[in-house]
């Protein structure tokens, strides 16, 4: 595959352990993300099974809390973030005309920290007293004084995850700033490169804050400090401010790369340039900057002063403007295009529609007085799953289907791709839409059992979840078939440089699959 280059990958396990190649590391990230998705998904299935009907049938409340906590942590830190770093690794060098990432050894290390971090995190489930059971937001003092002893391992795992993210972000910034092909100005970079550039700065800004939060927890637990202990003069609300100063930008860290992927795909399948590129770039930057000014909208009910409530209400509402601009731009890109609807496009369109639903409910929550009714109910659960599942996760699927032919040189089975899309689409909506209703009707989140009037919608939600979960096996079948085709060297389904009809961009000037060191000589930019 790379006979015309001075060397290819090493063989055997050492290829993966010692690799400094951006594509190998990208693959590692993506496979790791997939394994974590199935682990976190299995936990979600257990949660939905328990919530299928009122009463406690399968698990004890304490274990249920461990499941909701671990499901959230694994999906956010183990699935979505590593998946997008995998995309960054594969795509950034190819999209800016570089041979590899700027800091290849660092790249290896940023990935290999993850398996250690998650082994530690998941092993807490088997420790005495059980794993983290205080929610993925780990509010103190439930996560300090009242936490199981395993919380120390959880803190260590979060430190490792943060380290991995920071190293990855440094690498991405260094790559984009230094390795662009001559002539590729910042305002000529593809949208995916832009969104990751901005995301990487957000990561650098907020991951240290998360590290600070867990370090204060560690001090409170083991070294007698009282950062979050009211009895010692500390402040439990401080924890929430620190956590959400990380936590809110975090949701944009998760969604911006998906915005980037969708911004590549919609023009391709509309066969028309992206509408409003400049405003897209500015909107992304505006979202990132504003994301650091809205954190306390997660805390409208903690008893902030009125001025605080109003400030965070207004800033949160303002974020709807740049987000709306993006949605309008995507639709204007489709307008008067010449559209086809292959799996990447289907996932992208579903992304635009369903992410907007999450956006609308987000706007409703920005209205502080109304949020007093929504806060900590299933309405919130529905909201953030709409932005994270048909948002971030559909972005991952869209990107995989879009670039898989480039990565492997083989087209996936489109019929199965369509099947996967429709099952996922129906399953996700069946799971999460009814949660709006039970939330408004008064069902709190993070409860293992609920009052009888919530039973019907919860049963529907559980059925939807099982459909959603099992349909992901179709995705595995698609992947396995593509990889088998590639391994056997079968020529049926092989694709050329331009795997899709309407594609633009440097990655599509390389053969499929691309050579081991993407661009050994810089391409020329028009």
């Amino acid at each position, binding site marked *: 595959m790379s006979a015309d280059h001075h060397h290819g990958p090493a063989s055997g396990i050492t290829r993966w352990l010692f690799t400094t190649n951006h594509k190998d590391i990208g693959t590692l990230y993506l496979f790791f993300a997939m394994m974590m998705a199935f682990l976190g998904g299995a936990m979600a299935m257990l949660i939905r099974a328990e919530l299928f009907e*009122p009463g406690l049938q399968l698990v004890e*409340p304490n274990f249920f809390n461990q499941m909701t906590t671990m499901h959230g942590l694994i999906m956010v830190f183990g699935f979505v973030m590593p998946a997008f770093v995998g995309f960054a690794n594969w795509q950034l060098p190819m999209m800016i005309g570089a041979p590899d990432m700027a800091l290849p050894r660092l790249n290896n290390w940023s990935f290999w920290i993850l398996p250690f971090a998650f082994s530690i995190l998941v092993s807490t489930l088997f420790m005495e007293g059980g794993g983290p059971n205080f929610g993925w937001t780990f509010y103190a003092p439930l996560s300090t004084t009242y936490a199981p002893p395993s919380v120390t391992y959880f803190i260590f795992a979060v430190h490792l995850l943060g380290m991995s993210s920071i190293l990855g972000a440094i690498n991405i910034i260094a790559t984009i700033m230094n390795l662009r092909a001559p002539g590729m100005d910042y305002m000529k970079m593809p949208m995916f490169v832009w969104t990751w550039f901005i995301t990487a700065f957000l990561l650098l800004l907020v991951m240290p804050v998360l590290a600070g939060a867990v370090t204060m927890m560690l001090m409170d637990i083991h070294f007698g400090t009282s950062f979050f202990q009211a009895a010692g003069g500390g402040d439990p609300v401080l924890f929430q401010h620190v956590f959400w100063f990380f936590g809110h930008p975090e949701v944009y860290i998760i969604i911006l790369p998906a915005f980037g992927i969708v911004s590549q795909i919609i023009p391709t399948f509309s066969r028309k340039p992206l509408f409003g590129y400049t405003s897209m770039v500015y909107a992304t930057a505006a979202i990132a900057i504003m994301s650091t000014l809205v954190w306390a909208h997660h805390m409208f009910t903690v008893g902030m002063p009125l001025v605080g409530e109003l400030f965070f*209400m207004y800033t949160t509402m303002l974020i709807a403007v740049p987000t709306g601009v993006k949605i309008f731009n995507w639709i204007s890109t489709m307008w008067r295009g010449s*559209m086809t609807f292959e799996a990447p496009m289907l996932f992208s369109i579903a992304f635009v529609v369903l992410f907007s639903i999450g956006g609308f409910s987000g706007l409703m929550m920005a209205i502080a007085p109304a949020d007093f*009714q929504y*806060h900590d109910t299933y309405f919130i659960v529905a909201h953030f799953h709409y932005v994270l599942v048909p948002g971030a996760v559909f972005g991952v699927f869209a990107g995989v289907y879009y670039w898989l032919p480039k990565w492997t040189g083989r087209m996936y089975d489109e019929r199965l791709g369509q099947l996967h899309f429709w099952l996922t689409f129906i399953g996700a909506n069946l799971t999460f839409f009814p949660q709006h209703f039970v939330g408004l009707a008064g069902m709190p989140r993070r409860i293992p059992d609920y009052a009888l009037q919530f039973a019907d919608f919860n049963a529907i939600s559980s059925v939807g979840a099982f459909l959603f979960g099992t349909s992901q096996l179709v995705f595995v079948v698609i992947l396995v078939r593509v990889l088998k085709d590639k391994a056997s060297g079968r020529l049926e389904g092989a694709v050329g440089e331009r795997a899709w009809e309407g594609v633009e961009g440097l990655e599509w000037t390389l053969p499929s699959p691309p050579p081991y060191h993407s661009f050994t000589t810089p391409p020329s930019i028009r």
Partner: protein
Amino acid sequence: MTKIGMRTIVAALSALSIPLLPTATLAADGLEHAQRWQLNMPYGVTPTSHVVYDLHMLIFWICVVVAVLVYGVMFYSMAVHRKSRGAKPAQFSHNTRLEVLWTALASLVLVAMAWPATAVMINMYDASDSQIDILVTGYQWKWKYEYLGEDVSFFSNIATPDDEIYGDAPKGEHYLLNVDKPLVIPVGTKVRFLITAADVLHSWWVPDFAVKMDAIPGFVNEAWTWVEREGVYRGQCTELCGRLHGFMPIVVNATSQNAYRRWLGERHAEAAAERALLNQRMDLSQLMERGKQVYQTNCASCHLATGAGLPGAFPALHKDSAATGALAEHLGIVINGTPGTAMAAFGAQLGAADLAAVITYERNAWGNDTGDLVQPIDVERYRRGDGVQ
């Protein structure tokens, strides 16, 4: 999950075929509790809940209009501008006037929302001129209500039996939403809630009042309500507070002002009777009987009804444990708690008679059989620092 499960699936599927018109169960007026298939927020029984509901619906309909417009353009484009219909792609890539226009329009819509929201917010935060003040304290996993200036205070525990939760008995009408002692407030009165917590975070929520306020150790938050109609209103804790977070309901009984005064009188009489207990001596069986009840309500959620605890998290109480060690230490742990752990200071939560009974129970149940008897007066002496006799 067998029989009930099948019935739920059938109900769910058959209901899917019913047109889910929002009007069907919308704005349930004067409902005492949520209904099956309820789709929307309750209209509630307070002026605040009404304006919050109206605000919620205003934003909802604005979102619906925007969604119809945006999705409409998108679906039209998807239907018409497709390659299979021979559409030739245009090549435009921006339109500054359009982009400025929709940015401005979006901002205007936001102002239209922010204006009424600000007014409601200011009103919600005005807890001045209250006629009744109630201190609400969240504990793992119960609520304490203290009527300030009235010498009335009590705990409110879930009343749903374990048999119903674990499927050994049919689930009652207010499954998980019933308590032993509800909060009682009069209608037509401005009631202020001062909300705090004794251990971890909790959040006190009654949907029909549109009151939700976090209970935070070391902070006292404020909220208020003015109930229009008599009735029983139910809510739940809405901040994850540990193992039994899902099992600490809130029940508010809003009564007429006369009934409220009568109820207050009964509580005063009860408090006097409790004080009289201090000078009584109880025998083992009396103490054990009372102690078992106190234990079930306050201790069993962590240390379990069998006293087995949960290794690694909650210590066992049977055999060689604090419950069979020195009596003074045992009193100390129960009354003052163990700092840095989940063991709360029950001296602040229970009366002397209850403390005496539960300590006696722990020292004699599950084969502990120490034969130790603790009387209310012993507890009182310990609290005063006179030691144990």
